């Protein structure tokens, strides 16, 4: 059995394995599969039931269980949900591991996995990835008003 505390290197190695076999496009195909099979039944169903508040409920569980350092805001009046990740536990773990465990484009999955579900329900998704290996990122979900968010 692979412990859930070993999941990040195990998952990263899946990306590396698929990249070697199929290139980046193959990894993207896998992320789409994970988004459909794992994220949609969880995050998707919450958004379907509760709208943008479903994002808050979904990430409340996962980010707390992952012991992340973050600030998360839901403003239903403005139609905004935002996560400011001060220290991503997954990226933080990868940065400490031997490079043989690390898929260099690891963070890209956070953009694709959630965007695919969030946009399906008519919301906008903005993702600002980690820069310079600081394990910091930001994502924002907004109710579409015709105006792009920053």
């Amino acid at each position, binding site marked *: 059995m*692979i412990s859930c505390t070993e999941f990040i290197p195990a*998952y990263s190695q*899946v990306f590396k*394995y698929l990249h070697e076999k199929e290139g980046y496009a193959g990894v993207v195909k896998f992320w789409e599969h994970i988004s459909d099979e794992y994220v949609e039944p969880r995050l998707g169903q919450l958004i379907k039931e509760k709208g943008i508040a479903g994002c808050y409920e979904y990430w409340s569980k996962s980010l*707390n*269980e992952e012991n992340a350092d*973050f600030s*998360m805001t839901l403003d239903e009046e403005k139609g905004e949900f935002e996560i400011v990740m001060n220290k991503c536990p997954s990226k*933080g773990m990868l940065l400490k591991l031997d490079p043989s465990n690390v898929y260099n484009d690891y963070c890209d999955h956070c953009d694709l996995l959630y965007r695919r579900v969030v946009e399906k329900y008519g919301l906008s998704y903005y993702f600002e990835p980690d820069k310079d290996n600081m394990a910091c990122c930001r994502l924002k979900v907004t109710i579409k008003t015709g105006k792009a968010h920053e």
Partner: protein
Amino acid sequence: MAKLIMERKMGDNLYLHKDFHASMDIALAYIDKRYGKEGIEEYLARFTDSYHKELIGKIQEEGLSAFKDYLVSIFAIEECADCLKIMMNEDSLHAVISKGFYVYSISKCGQMVLVNVYGRILNKSGYNFELLFLDDTTGACEFKVKRIGR
């Protein structure tokens, strides 16, 4: 209209996100679909060789007590400490697991994970790994480990 704010620092929570197991299961099923059992074996070998390099070195140096400590620690993290019983002497170890902390119900590859992760860690450390029993429905299993050549 709710306005909710949540802020957490690393260490506020315990790192235990059991949903990771489901993602891993989906990933293994995906590799199986595209590359068959050989693909899963190849992937698990890469994961084990990269991630468990340190543990393998420790077992080579310190013997089976290092593997015992590893098992005890992951079962404790997974809140399943009471499911693990280990009988051990200098050159052999006998583990009885009454319930797995996850059952690979999508990929159905519980046996492959045990053999290609635990088995490989031990083989590379100079020990034989023999899986005596596995119940695919509960993850209960039993295995014996003996130093090669004894």
